[in-house]
């Protein structure tokens, strides 16, 4: 479904990605893990088209989308939940959700809204409230729900568990599995690598803008050497 070959990306003259290869098949959860600054967010920004200064090939459903703007990428069925959520704080929850469906104006927004309100009853309750008034966990739900409004085939999630309380974090990982079950492929970026690798089919460990290791999620999780070297665990297996 998605095949990335030799992806390089730059911020100005600074190169953040040094030639990445990875892939994702329909229906998979694939995770990119790695320590802070490894380049995980940069990969997602390159895929969605926010970052234009890049080289290599991004092949999605047999098209090279490397040169596409976000609007075009969205139109082809990729949606992103960015790190930090990027909720529109002064717009209502309902307006935030409507914006999620901006890229598919022809289709029925009410039906998608109904589906999302069923998935997240708390958002239905707060639909007239400003996005900025929600708690951190609710904002994360809103960000994910907003991305799902576009009916994506592939969902890019950037650190969805960041800054959440443990139960909320648990909820997010359950949710990710449900999203996959509904037929949406997920590319999950996490610093919380233990949880991410546990639910992923396959994982890639990113280090300094390169793929260091790849493999099946649970196998990577079990490899204590990887954990110590790339994921910064002092006490392998206990999580961060």
């Amino acid at each position, binding site marked *: 479904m998605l095949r990335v070959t030799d992806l390089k990306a730059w911020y100005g003259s600074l190169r953040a990605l040094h030639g990445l290869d990875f892939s994702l098949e329909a229906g998979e959860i694939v995770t990119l893990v790695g320590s802070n600054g490894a380049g995980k967010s940069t990969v997602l920004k390159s895929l*969605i088209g926010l970052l234009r200064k890049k080289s290599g090939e991004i092949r999605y459903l047999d098209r090279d989308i490397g040169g596409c703007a*976000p609007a075009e990428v*969205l139109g082809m069925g990729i949606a992103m939940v*960015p790190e930090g959520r*990027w909720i529109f704080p002064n717009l209502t929850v309902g307006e935030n959700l409507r*914006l999620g469906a*901006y890229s598919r104006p022809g289709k029925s927004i009410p039906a998608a809204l109904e589906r999302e309100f069923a998935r997240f009853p708390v958002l239905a309750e707060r639909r007239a409230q400003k996005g900025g008034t929600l708690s*951190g966990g609710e*904002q994360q739900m809103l960000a994910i729900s*907003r991305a799902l409004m576009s009916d994506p085939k592939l969902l890019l999630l950037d650190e969805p568990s960041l800054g959440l309380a443990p139960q909320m974090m648990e909820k997010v990982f359950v949710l990710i599995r449900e999203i996959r079950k509904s037929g949406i492929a997920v590319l999950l970026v996490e610093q919380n690598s233990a949880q991410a690798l546990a639910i992923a089919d396959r994982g890639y460990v990113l280090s300094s803008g390169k793929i260091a290791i790849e493999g099946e999620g649970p196998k990577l999780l079990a490899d204590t050497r990887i954990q110590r070297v790339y994921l910064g665990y002092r006490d392998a297996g206990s999580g961060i």
Partner: protein
Amino acid sequence: MLEQQLLNGMILGSLYALLSVGFSLIVGILKMITFAHGDVFMAGAFSGLVALLVFPHSFLAALAGAVAGAAILGAITEWAAFRPFRSGPEMAPALVTIGFSIVLQALVLLVAGADTKPFPFELDFGRWTVSGITVSGLELATIGTALAVLAGLGLAIAGTRWGLALRATAAHYQAAQIMGINTDRVVLAAFVLGSGLAGLGGLLFGAYYGAFYPLMGVVISMKALAAATLGGIGNVGGAIIGAYLLGIIENLVAGYLSANYRDVIAFAILILVLLIRPAGILGRGEEEKV
């Protein structure tokens, strides 16, 4: 007396509002300022006069010409001053707009001359006296046109898909992009709209005061920027409220305190308001939730 000052305040406020809304739209979205807005107002007004060469004696043609001319100049401003520097240095666009402002003034000076020109024909839309105050048709038309256009803009921003895209782009530029909004197009629309309104204001200003001249946009655009700041920069409703407040305060000061010090006192009041509410009347401080 009071009623007359309020009426004058509404007229001046209408002219300020047509300019301040453009400032608010542009600053609201790009968080950058244009220094060419007053000259777009001026050049728009002159485009209205040019339209009269083609359609003599049509006030509507003059209005349309002013709006169209200014809108095109707004698009050029965006294109030349802002688009090339989207992710670059924040001061670059401001500098380019200063250059653009000088060029516009020089061009109009060259083509039309430095002398003050009246509106080419008499605009007699009637005149009424109601309980002591006299109001002309042109005054009513100025206030009415401004209010109608601004109300339309407000409704479009609050209630349309385009307005939602505009608000989203102003709130978070990159987030708007990953919603699939073509933010470049939103920015262009903001410039075209804001400038079109400025052109409308320019023509109404020239017609009302009977004065078209190359520097006619300089002082009023500074005041409109102040009005937008007073209302809460980036907030279109705030820009409109700020504009009418400034217009009315100025006229009250002129009528009751001192005509010579109207600007000084009006600006003192403005600074006082900003000291109490730094983000402006409708503005809100930056807040972010974790």
